[in-house]
């Protein structure tokens, strides 16, 4: 062991003024400091030879759970996230990654080897956050045990000299020391302080919820990580492009993209079916926001199980359809021109819509390919551009609006081998022109119903019109609700730990040589993040004085025979026998003391002096240059 405990380091930075000189620090005795991370072990490397394997492990553990390591890991986490926002990511936009490969052919493979196109699933990223969460667990769990321990323990003894505390006040009362302490204890107990009463002193502590909130926050972060993990293991994500009039079933083969969690098997998928019955996009038709979308409405008919009742849902952005705990989202849309292709043999080799992908979001200029593998004698392929609202811009045809005001398609035709039987997976949106020969036709914008004849008797293609398609995201995430709950708990813990301060106050009452009692009152906030302990202490001082003065008056009235009922409402509620007028010994003692010393003039002077002293104390409380209260978060 190195001998420097976590407590020592923190205490060096934050003098624990409340710890009485004679009391050894018993592991922080339940104060926040005891469980805090250290700024970093300052002992350096353990000496080889002196430490066994256990020593080394302990040293590593201590390094890992130190605050300095946590800070560095947080920093690394932040830095490691940056490339994920700057470089294209596989999980977000695979097409952009492909494009990056084309633009930087030599750099891209290097970046790929470093997982920089998949940062948030990279082993080094996982290493950082797993280390961080291990560090966090190593810090938080012992603190949680300590908090439970400290909740069982009593607050520490009152220090001998309360004037040394960050906030303190002294005043005189003519109650006996015991009566003064009794009523002080009562006042503090009513304000829900935890009390520890000793000979001539009362210690009180409050605000344990602060540490609880802090722990809750950190534990909830761990829970959040687990929830994300649960979603990744038992959840799945899928995409499906759906043309109006078509439908699909939620099975892996019928989905375009399917990312199952580690423990998801195809039979686990919820067996719903969805048909897209309509799609309508509305755009701004004039003004500065021209072309901007206003609404997307996708009408769909769905069944939760095959053979179940069919229901209708109008799917819009921000309003997903939820079937069987699976959410279906509208995430994209586009046009699917409808083509009829007749091959060289005069047979209809293709008749149907082909989804084109928007290449220009504001005007929905879209590109796509038509592959006709069944065409004879050659396979046919077409690459086309679809313009929803074609206008002639100085000889160049462009789309001027995303809505279908003047839809046109222009095509480039190929014949030959599409390469679809080569065994290589092929994108349906690109044409592999390796085995293809471009046909010499002059591209012209076809409007609905127009036909392009292919040269050399290869056949013809007719543009029949267009359909619209939507792309749906289908997600099932069983970790979602736990993640939400973790998030809410984390936030609640954070707010608790920021709002509540842990503070201790101490009261000492000493009988003066000539019968009066000197009450000293001191306090400190162990954690006063949001500030305000000074005001609370001033308020407590005021209440305590008022309580003592009130009791002293009662005592005098009893002694004078003028008392009828206790003046203090709190007193009645509490019914503390030792200080009530009905309790003869204490009152008699107090009355005796007062009558023995009774002297009107001196009393008035004393009261004035006391008032002055209190005012000084209050001013001191309010003046930051005179007082400090150690704080730690």
């Amino acid at each position: 062991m190195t001998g420097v405990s976590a407590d020592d380091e923190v205490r060096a930075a934050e003098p624990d003024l409340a710890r009485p000189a004679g009391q050894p620090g018993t592991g922080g005795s339940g104060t926040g400091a005891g469980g805090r991370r250290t700024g970093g072990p300052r002992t350096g490397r353990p000496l080889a030879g002196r430490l066994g394997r256990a020593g080394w492990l302990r040293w590593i553990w201590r390094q890992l759970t130190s605050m300095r390591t946590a800070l560095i890991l947080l920093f690394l986490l932040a830095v490691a996230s940056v490339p994920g926002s700057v470089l294209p990511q596989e999980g977000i936009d695979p097409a952009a990654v492909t494009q990056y490969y084309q633009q930087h052919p030599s750099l891209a493979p290097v970046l790929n080897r470093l997982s920089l196109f998949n940062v948030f699933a990279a082993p080094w990223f996982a290493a950082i956050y797993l280390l961080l969460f291990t560090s966090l667990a190593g810090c938080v769990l012992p603190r949680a045990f300590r908090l439970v321990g400290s909740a069982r323990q009593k607050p520490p003894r009152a220090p001998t000299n309360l004037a040394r505390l960050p906030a303190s006040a002294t005043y005189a009362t003519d109650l006996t020391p015991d009566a003064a302490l009794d009523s002080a204890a009562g006042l503090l107990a009513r304000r829900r302080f935890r009390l520890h009463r000793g000979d001539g002193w009362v210690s009180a502590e409050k605000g344990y919820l602060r540490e609880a909130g802090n722990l809750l926050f950190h534990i909830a972060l761990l829970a959040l990580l687990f929830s994300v993990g649960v979603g990744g293991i038992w959840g799945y994500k899928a995409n499906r492009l759906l043309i109006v009039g078509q439908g699909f079933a939620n099975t892996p083969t019928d989905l375009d993209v399917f990312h199952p969690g580690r423990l998801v098997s195809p039979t686990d998928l919820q067996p719903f079916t969805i048909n897209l019955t309509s799609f309508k996009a509305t755009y701004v038709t004039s003004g500065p926001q021209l072309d901007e979308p206003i609404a997307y409405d996708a009408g769909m008919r769905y069944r939760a199980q095959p053979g179940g009742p069919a229901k209708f849902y109008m799917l819009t952005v921000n309003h997903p359809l939820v079937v069987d705990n699976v959410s279906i989202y509208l995430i994209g849309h586009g046009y699917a021109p409808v083509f009829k292709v007749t091959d060289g043999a005069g047979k209809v080799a293709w008749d149907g819509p082909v989804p084109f992908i928007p290449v220009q979001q504001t005007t929905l200029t879209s590109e796509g390919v038509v592959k006709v593998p069944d065409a004879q004698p050659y396979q046919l392929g077409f690459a086309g551009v679809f313009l929803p609202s074609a206008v002639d811009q100085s000889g160049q045809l462009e789309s001027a609006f995303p809505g279908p005001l003047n839809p046109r398609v222009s095509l480039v035709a190929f014949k030959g081998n599409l390469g679809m039987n080569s065994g290589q997976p092929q994108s349906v949106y690109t044409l592999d022109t390796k085995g293809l020969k471009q046909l010499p036709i002059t591209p012209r914008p076809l409007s609905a119903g127009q036909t392009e004849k292919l040269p050399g008797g290869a056949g013809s293609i007719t543009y029949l019109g267009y359909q619209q398609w939507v792309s749906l995201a289908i997600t099932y995430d069983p970790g979602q609700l736990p993640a939400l709950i973790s998030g809410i708990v984390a936030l609640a813990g954070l707010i608790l730990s920021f709002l509540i301060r842990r503070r201790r106050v101490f009261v000492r009452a000493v009988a003066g040589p000539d019968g009066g009692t000197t009450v000293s009152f001191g306090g400190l906030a162990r954690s006063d993040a949001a500030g305000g302990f000074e005001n609370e202490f001033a308020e407590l001082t005021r209440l305590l004085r008022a309580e003592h003065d009130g009791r002293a008056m009662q005592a005098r009235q009893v002694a004078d025979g003028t008392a009828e009922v206790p003046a203090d409402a709190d007193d009645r509620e509490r019914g503390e026998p030792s200080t009530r007028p009905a309790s003869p010994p204490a009152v008699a003692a107090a009355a005796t003391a007062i009558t023995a010393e009774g002297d009107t003039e001196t009393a008035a002077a004393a009261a004035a002096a006391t008032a002055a002293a209190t005012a000084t104390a209050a001013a001191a409380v309010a003046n930051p240059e005179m007082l400090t209260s150690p704080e730690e978060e």
Partner: protein
Amino acid sequence: MPVNTTLADTSNGLLLSTVILYALAMLCYASDFAFARHRVLAGVAGAAAPAGSPELAAMPELVTAGVGRHSAPPVKRTAGASGAPSAGAAAGLAAGSAGEAPASRWPSGFWLRLGFGLTCTGVVLHLAAILTRGLSEGRVPWGNMYEFIGAFTCMAVLVLIAASVWYRAYYMGLFVLLPVVFALGIDLTVIYTPAGSLVPALQSYWIAIHVTAMIVAIGLFIFGAVVTTLYLLADRSQRRLAAGQSSWSAGIWEHLPVPAILDRLSYRSVLFGFPVWTFGVMAGAIWADHAWGRYWGWDPKETWSFITWVVYAMFLHARATAGWRGRRAGWIHLAAFGCLMFNVIGVNLWITGLHSYAGMS
């Protein structure tokens, strides 16, 4: 929903007036520094007590000095005179009220009063500009960059006013209004976007929750970052003077509270801002789940809000760690704010993602 252009024009006029008022307020705050005889510090003392600041904690003599006053010889005798208890109670009350408000909450001196008055008038116009903009569009008026900057600068000024009154941080007026005026100037000229409707992705009640939380957090963070900048400069100047070197800015800091108080003020703004930011990120995640089908997808905006959150968390931890608090924590604070600003501006300008509806192209 058609845009009410009359209201939209009114909003533009109001925002322009706001900028002018803020600029005038800045002049007044500067005049206060230049001409006022009093030290602003005197008015600051009460609320912003630097409890826990390492500098002061390391000065036991201050504590002892304070203690010495109120541990004056205890009053020896009290007696049962009828007048005494009420006198005592009165003293107690006086003590209580003195503890709460040793100095007036309100600004003193001609220039400070005028500057504060202009700031308050300006913020009323600013709020009116935001309100009329929202009414003209029939929606929450934070749907693009122009509106967003208008909103969070307004929040920053509201934070300034609150801090001025609660913590008597009137000395912050000049320094907070400076970036606000600058940002609003750019906003009105370069970034200006005419009033309009929202794209479908933004048509959700979550915009009122998520973006509002972000606006509040950014307003608080702006204030905190300005205070921290002052803290670092003042701290540097103080250390140079202590080392016997010259400091060009020493004259400025005479008008400001000691660095420890600045440090604490900036810390407080983060204490308020961090949970709000956390809430904003969470609300954003819930909204993302409604709109895009996942609550977290490492979209550039999400990534940078995460980075911002992590670096602010670093600041909070650094401030509680021996050897890191003070200057180092201050630098981390500024780094966090840099991440925030990159997220607000840089991500919109340079990185395409799902959050690209800033209306800037």
